[in-house]
């Protein structure tokens, strides 16, 4: 059951990551268009501002995908020396800590968005972008990451409780092991 759900989450976040990647590609295209327009004496204006927003949103929404692909760098000097149960404990502990920190980040990001909303803040640029337009999706990305982190932790804990260490390794293990399993 847990494995199935993890598979679904992985597939879901793969789609999210594809959207994020398309946004980055689009951003590269816009920058390129701006460069070409400048050669003929015109300009879109504000492409660097838009790039910044794209980067912030791409970063927050890509985090959960990287989590599920076991892409967040960990140092496994001690971990690799432990037996299967010990490794599972390392992983679970690491996930619990990670979830705690990411939830805290999401909580602390809220005042930033709230301030832009209540003050009606706009970017200090000629575009005058209302910051809430870009900070709301950015904040949603961190919420998504926090939620994903919590769900994955619970699913992995449940696998470990049923002594399915292979399953937990696949869900929250370290990158190198994941590769050797394939």
């Amino acid at each position, binding site marked *: 059951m847990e494995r199935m759900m993890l598979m679904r989450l992985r597939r879901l976040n793969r789609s999210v990551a594809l959207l994020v990647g398309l946004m980055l590609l689009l951003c590269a295209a816009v920058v390129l268009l701006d460069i070409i327009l400048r050669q003929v004496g015109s300009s879109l204006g504000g492409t*660097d501002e838009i790039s910044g927003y794209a980067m912030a949103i791409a970063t927050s929404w890509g985090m959960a995908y990287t989590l599920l692909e076991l892409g967040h760098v960990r140092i496994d000097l001690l971990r690799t020396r432990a037996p299967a149960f010990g490794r599972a404990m390392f992983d679970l502990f690491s996930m619990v800590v990670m979830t705690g920190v990411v939830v805290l980040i999401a909580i602390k990001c809220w005042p930033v968005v709230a301030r832009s909303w209540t003050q009606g803040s706009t970017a200090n640029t*000629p575009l005058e972008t209302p910051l809430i337009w870009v900070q709301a999706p950015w904040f949603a990305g961190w919420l998504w990451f926090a939620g994903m982190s919590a769900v994955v932790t619970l699913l992995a804990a449940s696998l470990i409780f049923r002594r399915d260490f292979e399953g937990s390794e696949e869900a929250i293990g370290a990158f190198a092991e994941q590769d050797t399993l394939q």
Partner: protein
Amino acid sequence: EELAVVGSWSSLPLHNQYEAPFWNETLPAASNGEITVALTTHNQMSLGLGDIYPLLGQGVYDVAMTVADYAVSDAPELEGLDVPLLALTADEARAMVDAARPMVSDIYRDRFNSHVLAIAPYPPQVVFCNHEIAGLDDLEGLKVRASGRMTAKLLEALGAEGVNVSFAEVPGALQNGVVDCAVTGAGSGYSAGWWEVSTHLLPLPLGGWDSVVTAMNLDRWNGLDSATQDLIQEQIITNFEDPAWASAQDALVNDVACLTGNGDCPAGEARSMVLVEATDADLARARDVLTGEVLPDWAERAGGDWAERWNASVGQVVGVTIE
């Protein structure tokens, strides 16, 4: 009392010559050691420029000073403090700032939960061009890198094309023709070597005077007894704000001399950029554009009664009325 103070750019003279001595030595000595200070700068903390005052308001530190223009995201009405081209000398700029002070105090109280202690100048933001120009009119059709929203809007209204380039990329952009002109402080442009990649200098404050506002968290301020409040307020005006303004005009003259070779350069070797004198007709046109387009546009952005308050204070001093 231990105060955590966040200064402005650590590499610039305002910090090294005035801020650092004032907070590290003058104020602690004047308080007979009652007040101690832990001073850092926003760039040493790698703070985002727009975060400096909001974090001050939340009490992350006690005192912060930075360019008011960095905070206009949260407070568009603050742009009225530093309108480009209205003040051509340091004395005029200070008169403008003094007139604006009550407005600035209100803005900092309401938007940033802070008390304004002092307003000091960075050197005026002048125009470097790697393109022949004879006056302000010649900016029409050129690609210009501006800092700050009102400057960008003014340039657009003058027919120039605004290009976004970060400060560090400006020399390359000037050299290659990604931009034809760029606006920054004369001193910063001298020390960052912009004279290597540009030929003409238009020493008009097209980017304004970049007023640096020193403010204290309001809760912290209200928590001080009135004797301490008076001491800090009096000390910062006489030993920080006044001297900073007093040297501002000389600094501009010296920096222009360093860049163009017209006069003595105390900072080092003089360079040979072409000094472009703006004509009265240039200035008249710029003022028309300001009062006709840029300032009304700002009045709308700021909302409320800010335009009226501005007309009654700053506008009186510089003889400009927003229509």
